[in-house]
């Protein structure tokens, strides 16, 4: 009986449920660094992800199942294989890489058109703010054409995965949105 109640409460508060999140973005944007910053709170040395990394972490009593998919051109076509049941997408942009902003924008909008991601919230990290010459969050937002997005909860946060700035802020927003939507 006690078990029954506890599981009912769990369901109510969404404790037992794992939330699926994807971290996407072009290669070298800092996705893997963000993932491990979230999991172990440290900066790890990474090399280009061939395939994906997946980690489970607990954040504010929520179990998050975070998938970091490689961003190389050859791997991008496989992103779609992991879209199902996704609660949120974190899109990471290298703010210093002005040349490839348009590519990033194209990939982002292409991804958001997918049926399976219609209900997913979108958080954009304008990453690498510690670097000189980085575009600000609003500039990145403009480059990515984020204003065009309708019917979607989205936000853009300036971040630096190396220094650990902006990451928690972004995630807090995301969790709030998801909780609001699901409860």
């Amino acid at each position, binding site marked *: 009986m006690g078990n029954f109640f506890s599981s009912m409460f769990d369901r109510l508060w969404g404790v037992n449920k794992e939330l*699926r999140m994807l971290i996407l973005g072009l290669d070298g944007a800092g996705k893997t660094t963000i993932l491990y910053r979230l999991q172990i709170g440290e900066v790890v040395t990474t090399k280009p992800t061939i395939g*994906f990394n*997946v980690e489970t972490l607990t954040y504010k009593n929520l179990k998050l199942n975070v998938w970091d998919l490689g961003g190389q051109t050859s*791997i991008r076509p496989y992103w779609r294989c992991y879209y199902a049941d996704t609660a949120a997408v974190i899109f990471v942009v290298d703010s210093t890489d002005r040349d490839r902003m348009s590519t990033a924008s194209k990939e982002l909008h292409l991804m958001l058109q997918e049926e399976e991601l219609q209900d997913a919230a979108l958080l954009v990290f304008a990453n690498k703010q510690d670097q000189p010459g980085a575009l600000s969050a609003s500039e990145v937002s403009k480059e990515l054409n984020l204003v065009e997005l309708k019917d979607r909860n989205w936000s853009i946060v300036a971040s630096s995965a190396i220094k650990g700035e902006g990451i928690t802020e972004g995630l807090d927003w995301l969790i709030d949105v998801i909780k609001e939507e699901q409860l």
Partner: protein
Amino acid sequence: MSTHTYKKFENAESGELPDRMTIYQDCMSEFNESPINSKRCRLLISRLLRLLAQGETFPESEATALFFSISKLFQHQNDSLRQAVYLAIKELSGISQDVLMATSSIMKDIQNGSELVKPNAIRSLTAVLDESTAFSAERLLKSALVSRHPSISSAALCTSYNLLPIAEVTVKRFANETQEAVVDLKSFPHKNLVGEYYPNSTFITQYHALGLLYQLKKNDKMALLKMVRQFSNNNTLKNQLAKIELVKLVNELINKDSQLFVDFQSLLMEWLSNKHESVQLETAKLITNFATHNSRLISSELFASAVTTLQSLLTVPRVSAKFAALRILNRISMISPEKIVVCNPELESLINDPNRNISTYAITTLLKTGTAKNITSLISTITKFIHDVSDDFKIIIIDAVRTLSLNFPNEWKTILNFLIDVLKNGEGGFKFKNNIVEALIDMVTFVPQAKEMALENLCDFIEDCEFNEILARILHLLGKEGPSTSNPSLYVRHIYNRVVLENAIIRSAAVVSLSKFALTKNDPSLSDSIISLLRRIANDKDDEVRDRATIALKFIESAKKDTSSEAQTLLQSNYSFDFNALESKLNTYISSNTDSFKTPFDVTSIRKLTEGDIKALDLKRKQDKFTKGEFETSVESTPGMIDDNLISKRADSSFAGPSAHDHQQDLLATKYAEDLMSIEQIKEFGPLVNSSQIVALTESEAEFVVRGVKHLFANNVVFQFNITNTLTDTALDNVTVTCTPEVEPSELEELFTIPIDRLLPSAEAACYVAFKKTEDMVMESFLTNLMFTTKEVNPETNEPFEGDEGFQDEYDIDSIFLNAGDYIKSSFVGDFTKAFDELPNEEVAVYNIKENISLQELVDRLVVNTSCLPLENTQYAPSDSNSHTVKLFGQSASKGTKIALIVKLIKTSKGIAIKAQGRAEDATLCADLVNGLM
């Protein structure tokens, strides 16, 4: 899931496979679940793996979908699930696309995973890596290679081994770590867990490391020698398989350079008494194999101790060791049975071994070591025994008996009686009966004394035979051999019985066979009876039978009117076509059909073989089979990857019919002849009389590999030089071969040379040099030189750079000899001594060979030089005697006159003395051949 379906799917014993679609859908839904139920997923994967292991397969799209859903299981940290996932990835990598996606996750496990999953993770890397991604795994693999944990190290070694063909550059950098792994004795870290009973390591890493190290260094002879030296002393290697690998390595080294053998003698001697039986076996195999080709280099003590080792292995209780030793002895028995006569007591005691494999091998070996004296008693032993064994063993025994019949033609009576007994009384399937019939056919063809008796018994056999194929073969044989026997009418009765009693297939075969008796010279009265029989058959209800009877009647009629008519040759054909050539010609004819087959197929260009030719070819194939048997083992003992070509050669080693290798050779010869005849200038020379075998004129690893073929025409000679350019960045222009006669003035007049315009890197092409000769036999040797202009090749276009003038260059190749053998084709005769005595012209010559070569090598050279067929099993020189006699038989390629040679060889301390005695129909040919032997 109800109990019913549960039983149906999960009971491994039931042998019933789960349904493919059910598994697919279960997997797709279960693996995409969140959170994952690891136990259920593991179970599902095991069912999926069972399906795949049973040979079920998925279409690519489904396999890819499966792969991606399985990759989602990486989110779960359960080790057992992870192991299952790795197995699934490995299996699916073959049929699914995009396995690359698992790379990062696997590499993470290799870095941070538990010791339980690490080996599996490393092994699955083989399936997902390609050349570029292998580079990123380099550091991981390197650290795994030197891991203290034997399973991890082994896994890394195996993965590197398998990656070698994919990412050679990366794996080549592992040499040091691999070297370390060979000497490092790794044991499992948790000693107390394993308990006393189990050893705490098998040191299998040493085996894996040695395998990889060999692959890395296989082209460096010095490094390999160093490896053997380093690893052979003081128990460096603890693992049994690793030791065997080392023996195989020595085998490889001495096969490449037989001079090295001397250095290994003491080592091999030591290995022969190694505590592991498998090492003893492998060493004995190496020694005995090597001895067949290089008996001169091997000391008789070493060979004797190898045989002693094998002999003692025959008495051990372990079946596998016994069997392996027997197999090796059996192989030796094919070439030099006298060497293993000492083992006969042990072999005889094995005849009644409860294991049938062993008893069969023991018998066949005994049959080969058998001498003319004990054949009778052996045969009587087998007779008691053969009805109790399975078909496979019966076939092996029959094969052995068949070899016996060829080797001891004088014992034909005993052998024939045995064969007839098993044919009539033995129970067995088609293969078995077919083998006996084949053995009998062999006896009819090669042992003339046995012919009539064998034929009569075959007649009895067809009265009650259930196999159409065998019946048809026997009918054909009766038709071929029957008319020339003393009492042909006997066979006619038997054949006609078939027409009355059997089905249409047999009836038509019988009609053809009958028609051949119509023109027999032994019994002219038969002709009328045959005609009346055929008339009756012409009313048969089957149209094929009717057709054949009618056409046979027509032939007989016209042949009777005019004995030289075409009908005569059609009825009693004394030649057949070269089937390989015929097949390839017909194929081209059909595929290049331009005018809806209005031009008839031209058979004149296909080589015709007379009966003698066919017999000679047949016998040669049978003799070659032994040498090829050795070849197989040398392939099998080379460590590492075997190329496809060799596998295909090994695949076909059945007694009957040509093997794939022969077939290729024949096709090559046909192709050369076709190429040659398509050249206008050469067409004018008339029909091709004879082509020699291909002779190598350079080392096979030279910059330019040149092989020569000598083509003979009535009044011309053409040398064909096949040149392969092995350089990677240089093209050769205007390639010619200059031939300078060694002795001036030459009897040959050079007509023209057809050069190769351009020979690109790694291409092969032929250059021809043509000469005019008199009608007589001309023998000469030529100094040859390769002339060409080298040009550097542009790697992008694969053409030489424009405007590159190139350098004139030349390259020395071996001389080419035109010798008497080139005018001779090998031929078969049943009774050599009689044939020899009948030939009119005799010539004798004596030689003394100063070179230090064995009798066997000399015999081989004689066979090649004379192009004759060695008869009466004289192609093997006994290794324990200093003298040998070779009997050779052949015929002139142009005129078809017979020639027979008896060559006596005596080995003394000063060299080998040869006395060649030749007899031929053609006196000049005889003199030339006998005087030009060497």
